[in-house]
């Protein structure tokens, strides 16, 4: 609790990361897949015997690499920096832990970033200016560099779900960085890398369809047909491999996290299944739809394939990607770093101490009524609100996303209090412990939080008088 809380009303701070991240993933994974698509397409074109088709393909690729350069080099990089900004503000504690462990990993990644960005620019600006084979080599260097950025960040993302026993054994001792390679190549590293690589290839196909859809099918029927059909084929690997990779991924996830999925599947017929299962359903249904739509609209009628068709495929890909990232985040619950740090930034081994000494005593940035000699009025919000921001605010808002005012509606103070006590005790049979962190703190903290939430759910006399006098 070494950092201030960033309070985002209505939307919740998690969605600030979420919105930037989904946008970023759509582009950055395209940067990886497209990095392979471009040299593969160029190689294919260079091997064509018919000079006319070859020239048409190459001309199309020049235009496409410009689109690629602008999209990935501008929007991809800016949104990537945006994620840094957002996670530092919304999850400082987890970000700090990641930096302490992976500062070397990020250093490696930035080296590859620099190579990636410069080769992308060189690739576009040297079309028809340097030797064809050399140009193709630049493309392959780009493909390699961009793949390694994925390989590194994938280690960090999968680490958050499954840090692995080797790292957990030294967590909190100050020797975590000594287990860097164990943490990077953690249990879900490989299935996650293969999954993401497949998604990258699909996104390369989807974005290439956007560009190919703009070719006039009447003037260049052969070019459009071959390019559209070739791009659709990029969707094939992921749809063949995806089911197997997902099962592999699932096997590598800890049993408590598997339970979040199976709990959902057991209760699917009654409609009370978990969000992560709903999202998994969305991924499956949407992926199947993409296959059908790409087959009928693009592969079977390439000449009529237009921009709005391509945009609808892109939109579906956005839904599938968004649902995929969302369910990955949900699967991690109740942790932000598996078995080590709860989603509200409380470290698992610190729970007993905070329960003894109080939550706010460990929150350096929250006014705790002591030390500076100012009167109690110096704080413009109560202890209860401070605890709410710190312990609940990572996932809940008062009136917007996962709104506590509505989720607790209909309960009186005693009832709200019992609920918080249940979260505080966090008994093994509590249904909430599967996806919510325990409420940590002293008896006083429980009461303060109860009072604050009760005042929000059941606005009482004084609040109404205040409203009337305005």
């Amino acid at each position, binding site marked *: 609790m070494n950092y201030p809380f960033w309070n985002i009303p209505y939307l919740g701070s998690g969605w600030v990361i979420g919105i930037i991240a989904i946008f970023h993933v759509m582009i950055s994974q395209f940067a990886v897949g497209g990095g392979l698509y471009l040299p593969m397409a160029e190689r294919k074109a260079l091997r064509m015997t018919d000079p006319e088709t070859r020239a048409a393909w190459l001309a199309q690729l020049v235009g496409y690499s410009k689109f690629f350069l602008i999209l990935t080099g501008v929007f991809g990089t800016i949104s990537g920096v945006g994620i840094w900004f957002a996670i530092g503000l919304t999850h400082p504690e987890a970000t700090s832990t990641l930096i302490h462990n992976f500062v070397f990993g990020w250093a490696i990644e930035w080296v590859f970033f620099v190579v990636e960005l410069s080769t992308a620019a060189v690739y576009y600006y040297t079309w028809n200016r340097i030797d064809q084979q050399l140009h193709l080599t630049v493309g392959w260097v780009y493909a390699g560099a961009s793949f390694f950025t994925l390989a590194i960040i994938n280690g960090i993302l999968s680490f958050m779900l499954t840090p692995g026993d080797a790292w957990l054994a030294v967590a909190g001792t100050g020797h975590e960085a000594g287990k860097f390679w164990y943490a990077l190549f953690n249990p879900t590293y490989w299935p996650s890398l293969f999954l993401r690589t497949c998604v990258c290839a699909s996104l390369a196909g989807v974005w290439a369809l956007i560009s190919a859809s703009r070719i006039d099918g*009447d003037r260049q029927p052969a070019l459009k047909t071959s390019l559209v059909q070739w791009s659709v084929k990029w969707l094939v690997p992921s749809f063949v491999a995806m089911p197997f990779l997902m099962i592999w991924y699932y096997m590598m996830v800890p049993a408590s996290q598997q339970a979040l999925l199976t709990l959902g599947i057991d209760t699917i*017929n*009654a*409609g009370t299944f978990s969000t992560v299962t*709903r*999202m998994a*359903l*969305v991924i499956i*249904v*949407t992926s199947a*739809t993409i296959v*059908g*739509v790409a087959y*009928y*609209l693009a592969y*079977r*009628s390439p000449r*009529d394939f237009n921009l*709005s*068709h391509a945009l*609808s495929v892109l939109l*579906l890909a956005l*839904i599938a990607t968004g649902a995929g990232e969302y369910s990955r985040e949900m699967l991690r619950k109740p942790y932000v770093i598996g078995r080590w740090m709860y989603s509200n930034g409380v470290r698992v081994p610190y729970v007993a101490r905070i329960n003894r000494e109080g939550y706010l005593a460990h929150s350096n940035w929250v006014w705790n009524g002591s030390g500076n000699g100012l009167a109690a009025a110096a704080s413009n919000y109560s202890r209860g609100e401070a605890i709410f921001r710190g312990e609940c605010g990572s996932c809940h808002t008062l009136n917007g996303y996962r709104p506590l005012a509505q989720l607790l509606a209909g309960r009186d103070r005693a009832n709200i209090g019992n609920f918080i006590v249940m979260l505080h005790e966090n008994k093994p049979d509590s249904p909430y412990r599967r996806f919510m962190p325990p409420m940590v703190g002293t008896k006083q903290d429980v009461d303060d939080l109860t009072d604050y939430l009760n005042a929000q759910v059941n606005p009482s006399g004084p609040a109404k008088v205040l409203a009337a006098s305005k």
Partner: protein
Amino acid sequence: MTTKTQTNSLYNWTDERLGLSELAAFARHKTVPVHAQSFWYYWGGISLFLFLVQCFTGVLLLVYYRPGAEAYESVRQITFVMHFGWLIRSAHAWSANLMIFSILVHMFSVYFMKAYRKPREFGWLSGMALLGLASVFGFSGYLLPMDELSYFATKVGLQIPAVIPFVGPAIANMLRGGPDVSEFTVQRFFALHVVVLPAIFLPLLGFHLWLVQRHGNAVPPSEEAKPPQERKSIPFMPNFLRKDLAMWLISLNILALLASVFPWSLGRQFDALAPAPAGIHPEWYFMSPFEMLKLLGSVLPGEAGEIAGILLFTLGIVLWILIPFYDIRKESGQRARAAHYFGLLAVFALLATTVIGYWTIR
């Protein structure tokens, strides 16, 4: 006999009696124009697809739904006890909303493409009737769960016909089956929803689709102005059909997404004696007329205002329905422009009043 000759002889036998080859020939020759506005051609098909989903899920709900005093309990069972009942109910409710949305898109695209002009006047009129019926479907279906929200929203909704002079109260009482919304109302709405409305809707829909086959797709005036050799078209079979199916697939995906991620909720059982909960408002597709009447009522207060509001509102709808008989010429002229602006005004009024309506919910 080989399988092929068997199939052929079966086809010939059926063909002689039903004339299948004529249909096949018709389908082969049917074409669909291609131009910048082709996208809007899909919306009629999407509406049809969502209607089919309605029929399918509706029949499944009918198996367990019990109107009358047990209405709420049976919907509770469907939602929480029956296997996949929640999914069927959610799909039914979501596809109803999506269908009305896509019919509205379809209507405005027909309007702005001027596809109501000769010889397609009956297409426009039957389409408007289908939209009217669809909204009655929506209104009657909304009450069936008999939870708090549907009860009070229906109560408010039925106040609109009640303000019609002389006959209004009688009509409202007849719909309610008494002076108040009760089990009798739900029984009547049920009969309306599953028997009366489908009996009118289905033949009208058949007529509407037959007209589309008869006259083909209309092209917007900008295309019509081009010489015939510059206009493009694709065969319906299989090119357009394939695209249509892809659109149906996308619609099904969006429906599955909404139904599984945002399942339709069920409120508390209605209590006629309890005060209406805060924020009672009509469904989004009734928000605009509701808000227009409210706004007109505040300009002209009292009963005179209500009656004037209803009259003005009815006049607007009548003008909208009669547009094919006003904007008749093929060439662009003053009437065509006036119709265009009238359409823009309607879109603006619809959006503005809906936004104001949601803005001012209390």
